[in-house]
């Protein structure tokens, strides 16, 4: 018969006991801290409560979803800031990724000019502070553009405040201190139907692509699945466009008394923040991608070439699938950094969550609540990004057979 050890020498008891102790210490520390904060705030008549979110905000926000500063509440103002943050983060991730991959491939290309250019770009971006870069982009580049009346235009006549706008051919792109004006697509009544058709076309194209892949695998002959798929998709989109009689009309930039009045206007603040974040993050992403590709052993490339795959196929079918496993975890970090770095927007006047939140804190004195709310929102954004990337990582990880 096995003798049971003494209670306090039983590893299982000890393990539980230590965990309970650690948890108790942690909870007590947090509770004492929270209590001190609350009692100090109460002593200064700053007891936190959430009622202020329902008060009228009364300050203007330069851009974002619909918001009337006269009647909308602090809560709504926070939403505007949140949407602006998400807008920057998503656009930044979408743009920085292909640029980063492109720079990485350039650095690995073997072409001495490309290699040096890409290397120089990466070193310059990685080794200067992001805030300095953002202020350079905003003050130096976007506010350094010509004044509104001398806007740089592409296609169409020059916009001029003095001239009658109707007599000037509207341009496709107009750049000035007031931002970049580009054509805006205005949906017509058939836009919904057309979008449905495009979605259906995408599904059909995917099915076609999988079928051609299967044929290629069976016969060993190239079946051009990608070309067939894209052609089908484009065909469906084109036919549907004519069937609904045009899904979108184009509104070209036109000038008013104080700025562009038609078209889509990207503010200098948004543009500078987006360009700054993308150019900065792309350098880090390029290094992550380069590291991932170089982690695939040379033998893999040689073997792929030996069985007769083309250079592009080697990359797509052999190198990238293996490199992605190495790339995705650090790439996730870069995405999180980009999203969090967007809070530097405050220094160039872009109304993101942080800027709006600080203003609300200043107006209401509820800094503790506002800060806690902002931290939880950034945390939620980061965790959501992380979750998506982890799911993707699980999908592409090495499957042991």
């Amino acid at each position: 018969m096995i003798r049971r050890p003494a209670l306090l020498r039983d590893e299982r008891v000890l393990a539980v006991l230590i965990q309970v102790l650690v948890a108790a210490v942690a909870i007590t520390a947090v509770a004492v801290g929270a209590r001190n904060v609350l009692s100090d705030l109460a002593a200064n008549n700053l007891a936190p409560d959430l009622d202020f979110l329902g008060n009228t905000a009364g300050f203007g926000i330069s851009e974002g979803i619909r918001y009337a500063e006269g009647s909308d509440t602090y809560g709504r103002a926070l939403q505007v800031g949140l949407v602006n943050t998400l807008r920057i983060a998503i656009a930044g991730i979408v743009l920085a990724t292909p640029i980063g991959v492109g720079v990485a491939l350039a650095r690995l290309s073997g072409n001495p000019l490309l290699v040096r250019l890409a290397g120089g770009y990466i070193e310059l971006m990685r080794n200067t502070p992001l805030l300095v870069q953002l202020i350079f982009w905003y003050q130096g580049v976007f506010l350094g553009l010509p004044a509104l009346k001398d806007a740089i235009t592409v296609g169409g006549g020059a916009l001029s405040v003095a001239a009658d706008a109707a007599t000037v051919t509207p341009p496709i792109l107009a750049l000035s201190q007031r931002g970049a004006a580009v054509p805006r697509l205005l949906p017509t009544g058939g836009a919904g139907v057309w979008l449905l058709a495009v979605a259906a076309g995408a599904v059909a194209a995917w099915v076609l692509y999988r079928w051609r892949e299967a044929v290629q695998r069976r016969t060993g002959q190239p079946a051009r699945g990608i070309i067939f798929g894209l052609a089908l998709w484009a065909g469906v989109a084109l036919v549907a466009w004519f069937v609904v009689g045009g899904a979108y009309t184009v509104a070209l930039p036109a000038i008013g008394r104080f700025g562009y009045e038609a078209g889509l206007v990207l503010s200098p603040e948004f543009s500078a923040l987006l360009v700054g974040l993308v150019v900065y993050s792309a350098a880090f992403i390029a290094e992550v991608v380069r590291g991932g590709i170089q982690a695939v052993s040379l033998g893999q490339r040689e073997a792929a070439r030996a069985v007769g795959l083309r250079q592009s196929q080697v990359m797509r079918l052999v190198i990238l699938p293996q490199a992605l496993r190495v790339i995705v975890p650090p790439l996730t970090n870069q995405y999180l950094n980009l999203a969090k770095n967007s809070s530097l927007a405050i220094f160039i006047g872009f109304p993101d969550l942080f800027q709006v939140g600080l203003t609300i804190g200043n107006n209401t004195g509820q800094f503790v609540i506002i800060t806690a709310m902002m931290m939880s929102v950034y945390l939620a954004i980061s965790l959501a990004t992380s979750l998506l990337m982890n799911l993707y990582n699980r999908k592409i990880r090495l499957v042991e057979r």
Partner: protein
Amino acid sequence: MHLTLPRWSAALMAAFLVFSSAACGSDTDSVADDAANVADDAGAVDDTDGADAGAEEVAAEPETATESEAPAAADTGVGKLDTVLARGDLSCGVNDQLPGFGSVDSDGEFAGFDVDFCRAIAAAVLGDAEAVTFRPLSSQQRFTALQTGEVDVLVRNTTWTLSRDTQNGLDFGPTTFYDGQGLMARTALGIEELADLDGASICVGSGTTTERNLGDVMREAGVEYTSVTFEGADQVMGSYDSGRCDAVTADLSALVTRKPTMANPDEHEILDMVLSKEPLGPAVLQGDAEWADVVNWVSFGVMQAEEFGIDSGNIGNFMDSDNPEIRRFLGLEDGLGEGLGIGNGFMVDVIEQVGNYSEIYERNLGADTPFDLPRGVNQLWSDGGLLYAPPFR
């Protein structure tokens, strides 16, 4: 059975541990005291209990703190005045981007109207106008800096409003400068009334009353505009100057003092309209009446000195004055300073080292400065202005 027994016993031990520390901790140290209160609250969920505990803490702190002379304890209970006296130095929150009111001059020294009020408070409390540590603060940082005790007093062109007085936990001193909000635009635009600004972009500082007044005024006038907001005055004016906005709004005094620093001052005009009342003055943290009294009466004293005609040059002539009001004011009779907890001759230090209101004004904003800002309503009441100090008696 094997697994359940240890878990159950561990839970029991944990519970015992928490309760024993709660019970014996209450008379040893304050952290454990708090833990005990947490435990109490968890059991009873009683708000008043918590509030009482807080009050006890405040009441109990000074005894222990005076013995240890720990400045860190100031935030919780010791009066700010004692803290400043013990530290021998005043921490004053100022603007560093508003020439004339608070900025760093060519010698690297802080200078300006607000800065001189910091010096006056230091002279009154510590007898030395140079015993000030200036903390440059942005408009967004200023209230947190005061709330966290990072600065003892905020003299940073801050507008006195009801919500700041209450929700932000501040106490405002007397208004030292009566300002109003104005607009500046390019002359070429030919703006004559608010409606001419329909569709315009307007640069404004974030987290300011200016920002909210603009919203109010424009809503009232039914004018659509885009507000482009920045943290610091340098950014607001710089962005306007470089052409980002059609107009810029700030306190009129700021517009006047900023205009000469722009690239082409002649191309801009300050519009002939006043959007709001902006009473600017010192602010301290709410709930420290002793310290608030000191700040208030020093500010009033500077005004009263002008009313008496006492300035840094002629104060020597007044030291043997027969006028009982002046004798009380300069601490020669009655000991008014003792009531404030500072030296009786506090106004002598202030006037000798900093000067009276008129001297402060002329030095920073007057005709000999690039700003040449007329005093307007910022004159003594006896000259038709709004400056009125209560009696020193």
